[in-house]
């Protein structure tokens, strides 16, 4: 009994210490946990916060970013999204759904050889704007379209 209690206490202490270190900014979560998954941005529930973290809060509307989505999606569980960026030097594309519980859905980084194009299927909980943000030379360009959802897709 006592031994188990020790283990629990030790575990709680360690977790507490880690949380404190994180809070103090001693550990940068994005570096420690995974350099490859921007947990901080993906966990944001507010679209403005998510955009800020990915540096896209000052994105300029651009016709060079082509976003192809259905006007009406009968099934929110599978909404096709096709994106092409004609902005020269595009290095990444992020897909944000304003009214989803976690607005940032994905981010694609394009290296030498890849065309700034991606097609994917996303889930939408309800009718919402979808915005895609292309990054080129440190600047952000955005295209936005509204998709009306008949049956929400966040139930899986």
């Amino acid at each position, binding site marked *: 009994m006592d031994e188990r209690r020790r283990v629990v206490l030790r575990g709680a202490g360690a977790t507490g210490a880690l949380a404190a270190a994180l809070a103090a900014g001693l550990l940068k979560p994005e570096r420690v946990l995974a350099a490859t998954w921007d947990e901080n941005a993906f966990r944001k529930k507010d679209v403005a916060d998510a955009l800020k973290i990915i540096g896209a809060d000052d994105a300029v509307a651009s016709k060079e970013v082509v976003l192809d989505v259905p006007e009406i999606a009968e099934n929110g569980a599978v909404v096709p999204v096709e994106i092409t960026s004609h902005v020269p030097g595009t290095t990444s594309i992020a897909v944000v759904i304003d009214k989803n519980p976690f607005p940032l859905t994905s981010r694609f980084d394009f290296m030498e050889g890849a065309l700034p194009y991606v097609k994917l*299927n996303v*889930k939408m909980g309800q009718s919402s704007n979808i915005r895609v943000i292309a990054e080129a030379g440190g600047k952000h360009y955005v295209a936005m379209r509204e998709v009306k959802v008949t049956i929400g897709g966040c139930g899986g």
Partner: protein
Amino acid sequence: MPGPMKIRATLKGSYTDIRVLMSHPMETGLRKAQGKLVPAHFIENITVKVNGKTVVKAQTSQAISRNPVFAFRVKGGNKGDMVEIGWVDNKGESNKTEAAVA
């Protein structure tokens, strides 16, 4: 257990079209089954390589549809180029497969 994964890579003149199908539940962590929340289980990272060189790196959330399908494009390309795609999910499970450009 990761299910099957399929890649189709086709030369389309000036570019190569790469399509991939992954088997994954992509659980949001918000869905309930029998009154209990089903824990989040989704692909977080995808890497696309052509002839061993990384061309696309993706970060994904639980908002990607179940059994994800993606299409990517790379400049030029030749028949027989090897396309390799791999994923890692939030539980540390992973899968990868490869296919030659046709």
